[in-house]
């Protein structure tokens, strides 16, 4: 072995074979090494064995981490950090004196070299997603969904995947400060104590809390105790992407604020009104799974109608899609309702008069939807998106009730968040109070409201009026800059707490690592106001749950179980029963809201699939993740339709001045197929001006145009073309699928359910021509290798019919395989590194295209063109048919990539890992070599997982069972579109899919014999609406 390659292809995770003295873990939480081990009980902490002393005292943890100074863990971390830097300094050709640093007291559950999995939960806007976090010697390295959790069902979103990056983010706030004066936590507690006693005199009249919506019973209890002490204090929940429309709507319909719980599984017909239920929201993961389950091509296949302004993930899955400005969706629903009423649905009779003047949509469409809904009474579902106003939600509720969907496809329940609404209204009242000077102490735990709040609130200016403003956040962001006191928050993976899923199920949130930079936990901040700031979140949490009576008998034992399972059994909240709608009242209530059509171009705001509302802006993974629809990276764009762009004579990248009311911003234009005309969609979450280094200077801040009376859309925006032009970094340009009319076979195959069910349709010949035929095998030069003798024959199948293109797999893969990011410039040059490329193809017209997304990573050709051209044997075939990439052998001729017909190989053009922080290195997966410059890389079918599983099963003396070995993308995928397994096991899921009548091989005609195959996309169009025409598709 030369020292050179040792040096070049060095694993960045220098701690790989070292037991890291980070015990950021209490001994108590139980862990799984794997999902199926979940139910095994692990020894009770401190059970008499020689390691007892090594375990980490819970109470001590609580307290110490309370003051952000958890001695063991912090020191441990510092050691590792210094260690890795020391190692970095070691030269290439000297024989480095590597050190081995064992534990002093090894926590008993830790087996150096073997990862642990801890169950925890994460809430984007209050509602829980149950997670399993992989931990290597106390360092969280990978996020998986918790299969036992009713919301995630074992899958994840790209947001959740990115947590293992953000926890190590070096840009996070690290110091408690008041103004510029650094504070110790204890000092802060002392000052708070003093102030609270003062505030107490008038019942805390000047005390206000601005919090993120949360379902945490524990925080709810704290809040109660605070209000007991300060009766006149107030709590206000705020999220810039709140669901208040929904709750207000149910209030209109049923008289009380409720939240809808959808059950797509039992819906034959789904009408989604501006609702991206597959792409965002609290139910995303579960609904994706349920939706996909009903896409199996059969008579049972569901049908999805989508009405929306801009193409979304859900819109891309639609069987029929109607594009219209967001403001007209209400009118559309009204017309639908009145039509249903006119068809004799009694419950809707009072609403019959709502029908609307403006009917610029195809009446056939309305009729078709109405008929379909009628036909499927009780098994239909109308979903309305968070952007729509209360009236629309109310009408939808009424419609669902009238169709008898209640309880079957949708049910309504009381919101689990501590405040029913978290939108503009409650914030408005707070703003007035501040303006009135009535607020003395304002504690902000909401995520960056100064950036997210409507501009007309002028929150930043107002905050100057608050004598004592305290911001609790992860970053020194816009809000931190506007507040007097800044408290660095502990990351979700560093905190104790609890959260409830949409169905009410409680999950305990447990830390995976002690706060790396002394972050404080939300509970501790709130507790400070009842004088318990030094007790520690863990102790408080456990104390609270002890009193809940959920665990009769041995509480500690039960507690263990809750932590291990990640859910607290029997906490699901029942839905509201016997709901009725008063048609008359509703009609009057909503009529004004659906008032006359407004004129002018519509401005519409959208939460971003990558940045959400900006809180993920500092994640390089998400910044570089191609937008699921536009494939745009490192930027946001003002999205318009082709027609609109033509009318204003705009090209992609033209910077326009967007003027709305009295405000103006500059933004680059991007034409998006399927976008509604006369609408400009502005994604939120960009143009950040806070202290986050990554986010700085990326995109424009659409929030600059967001007013409290029009949080989502309004008419009357104007676009002025400027001279400026910007270059987008788009990973998939709008090349036509059959460029200049070239007659190459389309990369994706899609068909209608009718064609699929009819064995003689041309669809079947089309796919049969594109998969191996045992009778007439393709000619190959070399004798094909026979893999039947091997224990396994790894292969993958991707069901395009289930893939929504949500991109969770891309980030999951990135996290699992230590894939680097390259930055905006290099993406523009075409050097992005994500191993999975989700190709997005449009067919049909630019106005109303059909979309098919195709995840494409290395397909592991059996006769791989990349292999024979490599001069140094750096890419070769394994005995089980994996196309292996040997990083340390690669010299970087790039010949393999040239010769790869799928272009799925990625090359380290530069030494991207140079700018990794020591902390980020801790987040690396120690099972995967980190690649330096000049090295080719690509999908390996997660070979590190295969080998781990192989070894563990061989030690147990058994074979790997189908389904117990998941690749990262497969595990992350919410819809289960990706299936991996062995073809030598004829019963394995993947074998069945390879034999599926919809199976086809990408680029079959080249004879590469890919191991990854695709199942054609199937649509379920309504015959009454006829076939959407398939013109020369473009992409």
């Amino acid at each position: 072995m030369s020292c050179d390659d040792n040096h070049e292809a060095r694993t960045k995770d220098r701690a790989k074979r070292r037991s890291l003295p980070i015990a950021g873990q209490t001994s108590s939480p139980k862990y799984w090494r794997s999902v199926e081990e979940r139910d095994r009980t692990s020894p009770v902490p401190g059970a008499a064995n020689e390691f007892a002393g090594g375990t980490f005292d819970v109470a001590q943890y609580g307290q110490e981490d309370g003051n952000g100074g958890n001695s063991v863990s912090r020191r441990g971390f510092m050691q590792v950090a210094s260690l890795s830097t020391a190692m970095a300094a070691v030269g290439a050709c000297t024989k480095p004196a590597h050190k081995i640093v064992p534990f002093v007291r090894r926590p008993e559950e830790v087996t150096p070299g073997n990862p642990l999995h801890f169950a925890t939960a994460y809430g984007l806007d209050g509602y829980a997603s149950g997670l399993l976090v992989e931990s290597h010697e106390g360092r969280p390295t990978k996020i998986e969904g918790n299969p036992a959790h009713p919301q995630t069902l074992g899958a994840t979103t790209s947001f959740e995947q990115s947590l293992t990056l953000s926890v190590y983010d070096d840009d996070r706030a690290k110091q408690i400060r008041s103004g510029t004066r650094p504070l110790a936590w204890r000092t802060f507690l002392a000052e708070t104590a003093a102030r609270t006693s003062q505030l107490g005199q008038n019942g805390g009249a000047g005390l206000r809390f601005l919090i993120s919506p949360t379902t945490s019973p524990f925080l709810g209890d704290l809040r109660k105790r605070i209000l007991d002490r300060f009766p006149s204090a107030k709590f206000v929940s705020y999220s810039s992407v709140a669901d208040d429309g929904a709750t207000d709507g149910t209030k209109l319909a049923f008289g009380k604020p409720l939240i809808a719980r959808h059950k797509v599984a039992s819906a034959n017909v789904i009408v989604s009104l501006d609702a991206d239920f597959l792409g965002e929201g609290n139910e995303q993961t579960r609904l994706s799974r349920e939706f996909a389950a009903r896409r199996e091509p059969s008579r049972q296949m569901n049908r999805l109608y989508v009405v929306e302004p801009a193409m979304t993930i859900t819109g891309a899955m639609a069987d029929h899609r109607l594009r219209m400005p967001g403001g007209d969706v209400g009118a559309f629903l009204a017309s639908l309702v009145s039509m249903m009423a006119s068809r004799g649905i009694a419950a809707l009779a009072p609403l019959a008069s709502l029908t609307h003047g403006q009917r610029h949509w195809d009446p056939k469409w309305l009729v078709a939807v109405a008929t379909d809904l009628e036909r499927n009474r009780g098994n239909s579902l109308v979903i309305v998106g968070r952007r729509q106003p209360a009236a629309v939600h109310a009408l939808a509720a009424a419609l669902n009730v009238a169709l008898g969907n209640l309880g079957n496809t949708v049910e309504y329940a009381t919101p689990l968040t501590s405040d029913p609404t978290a939108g503009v209204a409650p914030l408005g009242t707070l703003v007035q109070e501040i303006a009135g000077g009535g607020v003395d102490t304002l504690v902000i735990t909401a995520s960056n409201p100064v950036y997210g709040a409507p501009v007309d609130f002028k929150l930043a200016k107002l905050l100057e009026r608050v004598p004592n403003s305290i911001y609790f956040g992860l970053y020194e962001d816009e809000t931190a800059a506007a507040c007097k006191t800044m408290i660095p928050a502990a990351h979700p993976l560093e905190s104790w707490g609890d959260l409830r899923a949409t169905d009410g199920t409680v999950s305990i949130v447990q830390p995976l690592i002690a706060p790396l930079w002394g972050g404080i936990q939300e509970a501790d901040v709130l507790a400070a106001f009842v004088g318990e700031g030094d007790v520690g979140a863990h102790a408080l949490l456990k104390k609270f749950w002890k009193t809940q009576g959920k665990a009769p008998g041995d509480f500690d034992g039960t507690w263990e179980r809750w932590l291990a399972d990640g859910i607290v059994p029997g906490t699901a909240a029942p839905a509201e029963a016997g709901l009725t709608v008063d048609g008359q009242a509703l009609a009057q209530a909503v009529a004004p809201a659906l008032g006359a059509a407004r004129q002018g171009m519509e401005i519409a705001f959208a939460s971003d699939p990558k940045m959400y509302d900006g809180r993920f802006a500092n994640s390089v993974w998400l910044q570089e993740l191609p937008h699921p629809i536009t494939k745009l990276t490192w930027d946001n764009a003002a999205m318009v339709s082709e027609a609109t762009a033509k009318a204003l004579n705009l090209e992609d990248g033209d910077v326009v001045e967007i003027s709305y009311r009295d405000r103006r911003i500059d933004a680059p234009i991007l034409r998006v197929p399927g976008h509604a005309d006369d609408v400009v969609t502005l994604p939120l979450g960009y143009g950040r001006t806070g202290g986050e280094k990554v986010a700085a200077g990326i995109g424009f801040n659409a929030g600059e145009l967001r007013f409290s009376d029009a949080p989502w859309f309004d008419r009357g925006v104007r676009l002025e073309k400027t001279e400026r032009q910007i270059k987008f970094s788009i990973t998939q340009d709008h090349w036509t699928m059959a460029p200049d009319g070239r007659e190459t076979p389309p990369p994706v195959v899609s068909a209608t359910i009718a064609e699929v069910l009819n064995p003689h349709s041309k669809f079947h010949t089309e796919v049969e021509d594109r998969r191996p035929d045992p009778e007439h095998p393709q000619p190959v030069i070399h004798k094909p290798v026979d893999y039947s003798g091997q224990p396994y024959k790894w292969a993958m199948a991707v069901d395009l019919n289930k893939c929504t293109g949500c991109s969770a797999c891309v980030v999951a893969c990135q996290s699992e395989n230590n894939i680097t990011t390259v930055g905006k410039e290099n993406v523009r040059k075409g050097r992005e590194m994500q191993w999975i490329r989700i190709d997005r193809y449009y067919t049909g017209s630019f106005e109303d295209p059909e979309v098919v997304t195709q995840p494409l990573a290395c397909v592991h050709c059996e006769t791989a063109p990349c292999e024979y051209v490599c001069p140094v044997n750096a890419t070769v075939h394994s005995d089980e048919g994996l196309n292996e990439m040997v990083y340390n052998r690669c010299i970087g001729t790039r010949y393999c990539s040239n010769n790869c017909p799928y272009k799925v190989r990625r090359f380290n053009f530069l030494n991207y890992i140079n700018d990794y922080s020591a902390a980020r290195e801790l987040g690396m997966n120690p099972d995967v070599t980190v690649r330096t410059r000049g090295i080719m890389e690509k999908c390996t079918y997660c070979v590190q997982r295969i080998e781990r599983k192989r070894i563990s099963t061989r030690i147990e003396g058994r074979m790997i069972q189908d389904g117990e070995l998941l690749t990262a993308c497969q595990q992350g995928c919410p819809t289960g579109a990706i299936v991996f397994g062995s073809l030598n096991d004829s019963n394995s899921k993947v074998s069945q899919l390879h034999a599926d009548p919809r199976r086809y091989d990408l680029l079959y005609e080249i004879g590469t014999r890919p191991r990854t195959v695709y199942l054609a996309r199937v649509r379920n169009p309504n015959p009454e609406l006829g076939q959407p025409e398939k013109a020369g598709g473009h992409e």
Partner: protein
Amino acid sequence: MPPLFRPRHNTLAQISLFVVAAGAAGVPLGLMLYARTPYARGMQNPIEQPIQFDHRHHTRDEGIDCRYCHNTVDRSPAASVPQTQLCLNCHAQIWDKSPILEPVRESFFQNKPIKWTRVYQLPEFVYFNHSIHVNKGVGCVSCHGRVDQMAAVEKATPLTMSWCLECHRRPEANIRPVEEVTNMEWQPQGDPEEAGRAQAAKNNVATRTSCTTCHR
């Protein structure tokens, strides 16, 4: 005008030509040989450790099994160097005053890890897994040599890739009953070839030489 070159210059020319040729062939050859020397492999070089830990004493006199200290060797990729806690299981009672053990006590009470010097260093892109080797009956001695005879541990094997492949291509030579893995003196009964093959079959050994077996 005197002749520019004399006959001896011819010899000179021939010699220099020869030297050039020989050098061109010899230098690479020399390097290849060097790479195979124990020195270049860092073998036969006892490594000094922060604590004078003597394997001879612990394994032979006390008869402690390797796995008492390296206790994850059969369930983890890493054999793991013992935690300080473990040393004190015994040394809290015996030799608890010995100055040699001062660093151990210091480490334990000040909660400072002992920094041992690595003896067997594989390149970071090599993913060696102890557990599978131990569980398939590869003895410690096969790679680590007679640790029970080393005052200070030294590298006993070259750890070159070809050395690994040797065994992965012909494992029989190094397979023994699983219960004998830590036995430093174990010898196969009868014809080693035969015995080895039989044992390999018994342990269900299936070595692989695909790159990703070790490189990921």
